[in-house]
């Protein structure tokens, strides 16, 4: 039998020890174990089955229960709150163990809401550079454009003869009172006042032109276009608050969509197509 030199045996032992340390480090890194005492911004007061209750939680609970920071409380009061937090932690762990957290419809709703809010808050916390807003304004300029407006006079007559008479005599027409407000209106407002048919006819007229009498079930109409204001983009400075509001609204939606895409990519999703088809045919 050949004797192993002492030095190489030592190297072997050191090597094994090193490998064991690497293994232990990997095991610790992959476990859920958190080294709570290393956290400096939230020093741990107590751990309940590896879940830590820190100074932040105490302050938060003190604020919630007494309306004051934990610093203003004496030790006895602080301990009462910490004991309450321990009781709550035990109940939360029990809820997790029983699967209540994912089965109760109320909790599911609250969790969904909380994740959506958290995603939105993370987006809203990001500062918006002026150039970002400007780019957004240019990209969606249609949203910040004043639509075409038309100043229109609409006269209603009881019968076709009176309408025809007014159509043929300008002085008689001007004596009539228009049923529309005197200001220029966007097309959707005209539709609300006149309905689709009359609005479509009005849109086909030139400025200054009066339509021929138009028979409707409730009477006969004459329409005169007084002014047509073309659609115009509103200057950025004028609509900046609206641009920012729209940017935030779309950004929140996009952040949630991106979150869902990322979650789907990481998840194992299986669909029981046979059951889907069966349910759809029922």
């Amino acid at each position: 039998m050949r004797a192993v030199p002492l030095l190489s045996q030592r190297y072997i032992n050191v090597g094994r020890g090193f490998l064991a340390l690497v293994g232990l480090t990997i095991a610790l890194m992959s476990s859920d174990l958190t080294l709570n005492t290393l956290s400096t911004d939230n020093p741990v007061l107590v751990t309940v089955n590896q879940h830590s209750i820190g100074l932040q939680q105490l302050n938060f609970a003190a604020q919630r229960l007494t309306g004051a920071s934990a610093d203003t409380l004496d030790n006895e009061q602080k301990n009462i709150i910490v004991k309450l937090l321990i009781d709550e932690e035990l109940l939360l762990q029990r809820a997790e163990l029983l699967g209540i957290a994912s089965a109760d419809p109320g909790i599911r709703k609250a969790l969904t809401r909380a994740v959506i809010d958290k995603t939105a808050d993370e987006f809203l916390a990001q500062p918006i550079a002026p150039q970002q807003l400007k780019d957004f304004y240019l990209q969606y300029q249609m949203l910040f454009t004043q639509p075409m407006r038309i100043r229109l006079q609409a006269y209603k007559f009881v019968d076709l003869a009176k309408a025809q008479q007014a159509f043929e005599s300008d002085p008689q027409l001007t004596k009539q009172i228009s049923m529309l407000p005197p200001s220029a209106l966007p097309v959707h407002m005209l539709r609300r006042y006149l309905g689709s048919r009359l609005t479509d006819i009005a849109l086909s007229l030139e400025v200054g032109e009066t339509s021929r009498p138009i028979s409707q079930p409730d009477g006969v109409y004459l329409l005169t276009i007084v002014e047509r204001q073309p659609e115009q983009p509103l200057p950025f400075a004028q609509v900046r608050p609206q641009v920012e509001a729209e940017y935030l609204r779309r950004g929140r939606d996009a952040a949630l969509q991106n979150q869902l895409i990322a979650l789907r990519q990481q998840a194992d999703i299986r669909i029981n197509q046979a059951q889907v088809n069966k349910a759809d045919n029922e």
Partner: protein
Amino acid sequence: MNSAAHHSLRILVLGALLGTVLGALDATDWLTPNQQLSESSIAAVNSTQIRLLEYQRALNMLASEKRDAVTDQDRDLVLQRLIDEELLIQQGLNSDLIRTNIAVRNVVLQSILAGIMVEIEASNSQEQVLADYIENLKTSANIEWSAGWEQP
């Protein structure tokens, strides 16, 4: 090398090989049994199954709000929304929102307390039941106080 060293080296190599094989199997999901979706499930998101009943309930709700008949597109949308909801719930649980979000925390505590209330209502000494319940949880829990905290 003596036979004892030879033997230990053999065990080390065997252990390393076994570890590598198990690691590779786990990484390729071979160790996780490919759970069959049950008859009562319409889909599964990670390990959570979405029940057929939920899908039907959501479809009925949509049908009651719609004037026209429910289309295939609507059905797919309902299924995708249920999957999205499940993903968000799992994300919420994984990010520990049941502890950090006050609204969720309150709902969870209310829910578990509602279960205990059934016991409490059946008992004469109402407060004692809750105290006993929490005391029972404490006896099986590992509670460690920080060295710097002046504990009661």
